[in-house]
């Protein structure tokens, strides 16, 4: 099946406008032509409340029987709906309540009571391995509302979380099509992989890049120990639960939804660099006579030549429905993003299949399956070249050939000669069965898999960029290069849970969970590289020895062969888990959870880890004392404590392995011989990282749920952090070969706050949401034992300089370097202060911090943190008679950026514009030294540290929903047209493309080494369902 899908996708991908696109488009057009107003309309309004508590129920689904047009109740339990005169019944449904059919009374406001199914009182919140009444929740869980998903036009659904859920920080790694984002929940908890895990319909995964936003129903971010400890060794960096759309028995007649969005992406801003004449003037100041006439030098804006505006599109058709026995949700989606550096692109096809079937009365089986083939075209990362290329060089000579760009190469030639493709298919899904013993006891077993196939190929033809005199420049490739790698990965996860829910005499509410899971993760990679392919054409991009040959030396040019496993994806796990939630009188709640994980990644004796949590909740509003506060809807205080683990290391770190990849050269003529010897030492004592997290939270709802707010204080201490440390050289591991130890502790603490206000005046409804959180990140311990270092140096720049130093008392990945204080204005100052021998008048004055009279490496110090102190976001949503408007801002304060691309200057490159304000004579500049192509003034110093604070208008959306439309004989439930802008503006003082510089490596965060810019996206879209 996968094979045939794969085939069909490769056919459709060969066209720029795919089949999906055409179909979607045709349907949409057909649709717009057929719509006509519907007559005989009346409007009904109503209030829905709980039969027992008589409290209004927000979020109840209301549809007209056999019709499908519908709505849901607002926070005060009210709804209004336009119906036809002859409509007779409404169907009301809400999770935890019995579905009800009521007769329509158009003459008055309907008052409808709903009856609970099992004593549910409140909204149901999805938690790990089940769901809980929000009232019984003791954990800190951030929820992304379904309407907020997809507000960001991105491949990655988690982008929607940015600025919407407190405690979540998302930094895009790169604006290249298909690039991911670094997601951090409550700070940076470890030196290694600090990303959360994702649980999609029960399948535990490392990412959700394969998911189409439109298929997602809800995302919950589990933050504290009470919520995450049930995920044991994988919960320490937080857990993001994703539920995808399901069918429902409410839709006996299937509902078809079509959404289509097309946009244009553009560069948000250019980096301000010197133009040709300015560069020539500066060059003459550095070395007189470099340019005889600065007025006639060429002026090439390399950024203009490379960045273009490109389209992005996203289309989807889904169908959902169901009856008493079965329900289904099927969708097909297509996403394509063309990079603003052409020809980079990414396209993905999504097939989604969520079904469930009931057998007799007690058994339900079902499946949740996603299949997502993708194709990515990668271009060389030329942004660093654009930054460096001298503006006085021409891109092309008169004969049309590429112009020589000294020292960096012509970026256009590099792009033109690059052919890199990454194809793959990801198939994620599970099949589950549930046995319902009775209303209280449920057994569930589910078997899930995550299968991924990736094929990478890259071809670079032989080429030479020639100097004007016909001699070859340094930009050339003697032999064509071909590289291929195929990787295959799968895991299976078998989960079994038994869930007991009972309300004993309406006072003692108990929810018990016990479970057992097994998981196997496997992978394999095969890679080949060769040179001198017989023809340049794509038909010959294969590594077949007779056709890749060095004829002059008579050898086949298969340069390397690799076959092995992905060390992060080769392990087994067994887990036991249990949870008790006990609620007394709906007022006092206790949650206990425990998970025990066994992993093949660790040695005998360290294989098993135990991860407990305990939490208490107090629904203060239930106390009699509080009943008199009429405006208070709810008030909850909760406290949680627990220990959670992180097992994300490569499986073989504990083994001392043999390095078989060496070669020795003997003989005349020289020939290669196999060589193997001891590789670096492993550490058999490795164990889990454990994070102890404490959380105190207060939740409140006021004024009939108009105002809801939540505030949390958290403190996470991660101990036994797996960190690679230097060991003494005489051990013989070799330069830079570090050994992994459980040898560090990090603390993250802060306050998280969220507030939502929503209200309604007649037809105008609006809501305002604010989130904010503080992060304090501090290393408590590194190393300690003999022969192991106590600092971690990272942040490698392109020239090997390292600009981060992580040590006790500092945040992870803290910047370090020299501090400067202005410029040596005259000989007096130069004589007076200690300085390096290279320094002269007009150069930066580096401070002698240790006052030993010498400037050297010991004078380097802490310069700033890559981790923000404060992350925030706010949003405004307004709806008025069919129009909807939404605006999301997001930002952060207090982090620094290291402008790494500016520091690495072994050769003469172009400069940022500020160099124009250079020092020329005494007093002419206090900050900008006299120009130089590199060297002394470019030592890593505070001069390259910039404020990384920013505020970004993440999304701005204006939409209009048509009501009362008819398509042929049927009703159109929804037809909404909208325009959307993402990343419309960013307020920042940083000179680079973006202040959002993500990195998976926490020791190299916020270092701008030349990042593919994140584009601004302006799009137009339409959603309809019928």
């Amino acid at each position, binding site marked *: 099946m996968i094979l045939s899908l794969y085939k069909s996708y490769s056919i459709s991908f060969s066209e720029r406008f795919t089949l999906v696109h055409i179909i979607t488009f045709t349907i949409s057009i057909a649709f717009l032509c057929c719509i006509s107003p519907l007559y005989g309309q009346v409007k009904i309004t109503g209030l829905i409340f709980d039969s027992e508590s008589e409290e209004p129920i927000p979020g109840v689904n209301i549809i007209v029987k056999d019709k499908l047009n519908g709505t849901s109740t607002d926070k005060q339990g009210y709804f209004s709906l336009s119906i036809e005169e002859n409509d007779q019944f409404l169907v009301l449904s809400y999770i935890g309540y019995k579905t009800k059919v009521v007769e329509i009374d158009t003459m008055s406001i309907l008052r409808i009571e709903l009856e609970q199914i099992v004593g549910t009182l409140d909204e149901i919140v999805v938690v790990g391995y089940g769901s809980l009444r929000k009232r019984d929740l003791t954990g800190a869980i951030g929820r992304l509302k379904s309407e907020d998903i997809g507000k960001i036009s991105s491949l990655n659904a988690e982008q929607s979380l940015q600025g919407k859920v407190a405690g979540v920080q998302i930094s895009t790694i790169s604006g290249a099509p298909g690039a991911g984002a670094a997601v951090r929940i409550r700070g940076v908890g470890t030196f290694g992989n600090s990303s959360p895990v994702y649980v999609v319909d029960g399948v535990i995964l490392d990412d959700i890049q394969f998911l189409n936003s439109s298929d997602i129903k809800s995302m919950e971010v589990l933050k504290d120990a009470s919520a995450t400890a049930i995920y044991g060794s994988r919960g320490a960096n937080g857990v993001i639960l994703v539920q995808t759309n399901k069918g429902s028995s409410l839709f006996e007649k299937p509902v078809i939804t079509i959404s289509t969005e097309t946009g244009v992406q553009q560069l948000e801003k250019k980096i301000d660099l010197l133009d040709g004449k300015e560069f020539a003037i500066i060059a003459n100041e550095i070395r007189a006579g470099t340019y005889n006439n600065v007025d006639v030098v060429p002026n090439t804006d390399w950024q203009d030549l490379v960045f273009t505006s490109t389209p992005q599109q996203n289309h989807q058709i889904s169908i959902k429905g169901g009856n008493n026995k079965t329900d289904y949700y099927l969708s097909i989606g297509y996403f394509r993003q063309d990079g603003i550096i052409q020809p980079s692109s990414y396209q993905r096809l999504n097939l989604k299949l969520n079904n469930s079937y009931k057998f007799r009365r007690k058994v339900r089986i079902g499946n949740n399956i996603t299949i997502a083939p993708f194709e990515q075209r990668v271009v060389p990362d030329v942004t660093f070249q654009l930054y460096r290329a001298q503006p006085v060089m021409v891109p092309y000579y008169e004969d049309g050939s590429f112009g020589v760009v*000294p020292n960096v190469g012509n970026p256009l030639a590099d792009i033109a000669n690059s052919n890199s493709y990454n194809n793959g298919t990801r198939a994620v899904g599970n099949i589950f069965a549930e046995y319902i*013993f009775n209303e209280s006891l449920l057994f569930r077993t589910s078997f899930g898999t995550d299968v991924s196939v990736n094929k990478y190929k890259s071809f670079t033809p032989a080429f030479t960029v020639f100097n004007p005199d016909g001699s070859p420049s340094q930009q050339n490739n003697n032999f064509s290069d071909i590289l291929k790698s195929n990787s295959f990965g799968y895991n299976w996860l078998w989960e*079994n849970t*038994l869930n007991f829910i009972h309300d004993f005499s309406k006072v003692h509410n108990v929810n018990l969970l016990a479970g*057992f899971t097994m998981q196997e993760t496997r992978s394999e990679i095969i890679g080949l590289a060769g040179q001198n392919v017989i023809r340049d054409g794509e038909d010959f991009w294969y590594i077949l020895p007779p056709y890749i040959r060095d004829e002059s030396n008579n050898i086949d040019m298969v340069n390397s062969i690799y*076959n*092995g496993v992905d060390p992060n994806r*080769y*392990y*087994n796990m*067994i887990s036991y888990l249990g949870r008790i939630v006990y609620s007394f009188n709906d007022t006092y709640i206790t949650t206990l959870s425990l998970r025990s994980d066994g992993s*093949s990644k660790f040695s005998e004796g360290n294989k098993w880890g135990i991860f407990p949590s305990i939490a208490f909740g107090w629904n203060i509003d239930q106390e009699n004392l509080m009943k008199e506060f009429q405006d208070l809807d709810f008030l909850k205080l909760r406290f949680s404590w627990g220990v959670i683990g992180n097992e994300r290391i490569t*499986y*073989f770190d504990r*083994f*001392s*392995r*043999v390095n*078989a990849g*060496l*070669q*020795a*050269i*003997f*003989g*005349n003529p*020289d020939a*290669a*011989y*196999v*060589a*193997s*010897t*001891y*590789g670096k030492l492993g550490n058999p004592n490795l164990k889990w990282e454990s994070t102890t997290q404490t959380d105190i939270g207060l939740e409140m709802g006021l004024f009939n749920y108009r105002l809801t707010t939540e505030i949390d204080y958290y403190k996470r201490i991660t101990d036994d952090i797996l960190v690679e440390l230097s*060991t*003494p*050289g*005489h*051990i*013989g*591991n*070799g*330069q*830079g070969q570090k050994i992994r130890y459980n040898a560090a502790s990090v603390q993250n603490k802060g306050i998280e706050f969220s507030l939502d206000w929503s209200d309604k005046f007649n037809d105008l409804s609006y809501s305002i949401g604010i989130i904010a959180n503080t992060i304090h990140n501090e290393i408590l311990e590194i190393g300690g034992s*003999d*022969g*192991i*270092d106590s600092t971690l140096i990272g942040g490698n720049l392109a020239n*090997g300089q390292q600009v981060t130093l992580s040590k006790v008392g500092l945040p992870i990945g803290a910047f370090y370097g020299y501090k400067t204080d202005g410029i040596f204005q005259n000989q007096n100052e130069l004589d007076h202060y200690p300085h390096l021998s*290279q320094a002269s008048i007009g150069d930066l004055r580096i401070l002698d911090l240790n006052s030993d009279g010498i400037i*050297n*490496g010991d004078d380097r110090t802490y310069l700033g943190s890559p981790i923000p102190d404060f992350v925030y976001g706010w949003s405004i949503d307004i709806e008025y008679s069919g129009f909807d408007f939404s605006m999301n801002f997001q930002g952060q304060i207090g982090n620094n950026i290291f402008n790494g691309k500016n520091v690495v*200057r*072994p*050769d*003469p490159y172009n400069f940022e514009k500020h160099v124009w304000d250079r020092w020329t004579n005494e007093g002419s500049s206090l900050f900008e030294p006299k120009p*130089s192509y*590199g*060297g002394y003034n470019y030592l890593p110093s505070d001069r390259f540290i910039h404020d990384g604070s920013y505020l970004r208008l993440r999304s701005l959306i204006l939409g209009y929903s048509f009501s009362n439309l008819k398509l042929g004989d049927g009703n159109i439930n929804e037809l909404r047209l909208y325009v959307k802008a993402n990343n419309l503006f960013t307020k920042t003082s940083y000179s680079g493309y973006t202040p959002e510089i993500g990195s998976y490596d926490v020791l190299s965060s916020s270092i701008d080494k030349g990042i593919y810019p994140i584009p601004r996206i302006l799009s137009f879209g339409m959603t309809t369902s019928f």
Partner: protein
Amino acid sequence: MKLVSIIGIFGLIALVSCSDFLSVNPQSELTQEAFPSSPNDAFHATNAVYSTLRNWHYHSGGFPILDIMSDDAHKGSNPNDALNTVGPYDNFMHTTTQDGLDRWWNGLYQGIRRANVVIEKLPLITMDESLKNKYIGEAKFLRALYYFDLVRAFGSIPIVLTTNPEFRLSQSAVVEVYNVIEEDLRFAIKNLPLKKQYMPKNIGRASSDAASVLLAKVFIFNNNFLEAEDLLLDVIQSGDYDLEPDYYDANGPNGEHGIESIFEIGAISTEGGQGNQYANTQGVRGSPNRGWGFNQPSIDLRNAFEYGDVRKKATIIELGDVIDGITILGDSFTPDIVRDENGQIVRMEGYNRKVWIPGLSTDTQYGHNRRLIRYADVLLLAAEALNENNKPEEALIFINQIRKRARGGNDAILPDIISVDKSFLREKIHQERRVELALEGHRFWDLVRTQFAEPILAPYGYQKGKHELLPIPQSEIDLSKGSLTQNPNW
């Protein structure tokens, strides 16, 4: 009942999950417990000790700092490139955290570990005893070579003779290190074949001759000229070696494993696993672009050659030279000539001719076979030993043999040396060593082991009592938590 059975199944599943499921072995990789265990493993493990020789770090940490510290060369490359990392070695401004110190230290100890694998584990393998001893002999030769670099560069250092050393080791006295070296080389001399006994495909492996010369060198560094003389004369009298008729071939591709080569590092012209970056680091940085252009010859070195000495052109590439039909041009962005305030030329762009390999790309440079021990060195060491042992007449034979080739057939230049005055001859031999072995990494050691270092290098910043040794890398001092002591005056 159903409930019970379900729970029963549940429990069963839990029990079935035997511990086997949680045991996953490393894939496609051997662990150290299982290696080396066969004659084939022994062969591979022995080869791996040689692999270190092509590791960039092996060559004084990557950059040719020994020549840069000497009076023969400057940092080179673009003025700004590695200005603060390699630059300070040029005028003895380097510090305990200087770039490259840790690379050299770690690279050499990695080589020593690889040798220790062979020396410690091969005795446990059942295999042909003489082959086993040959392998161990090769490993001991290389271990001695690595220790010789370490002890010369860093002085007293931790001695590691096992694959599983303590993390905390203290330094051993220099003499103890030399004892280990001597013992290893004695074993190698006894158990290794002569170079001429190697089949062409195995040439390049350590030979008994190479071990003899290396031991002689060790002796000379310790002013033990008597023992050195015996070893060197044995090699010379074997008649297995001679000087290449054309001086270019002493280091060039035509002389690889030739008559003058006693021990060299094999390399293939590719960037990566089979090549050697040593020549790329020093390759022409201009047009054509062959490398990074470090280690540019000094004016002083240019002046050291006598008029007409053919070795000058074979040592220094001057801009405008035509090699293999290619005109060498400088990098247009850097000045070709640097003058001082008086207009005197203090520096000229130029490159190390000895690492030149024909070709236009940077790749081919990786094929340079660096000569670690060549016969000219043997002759000059023998001359030095004989002179010190008061046999100047015999010394003259060897030094004049060297000078004869340098004449290039022109008998009017480079006259034979005839004086038998010991100190005169000593200076002459060192002068001859300088020009014969220039830019091959010998000069700095030669100055340091004799009385010449201070007078010659002091103008560059050399301080007696300090700069004979490099500082032990500060990172190692820090990691040792007090078990390592820094060298004097650092």
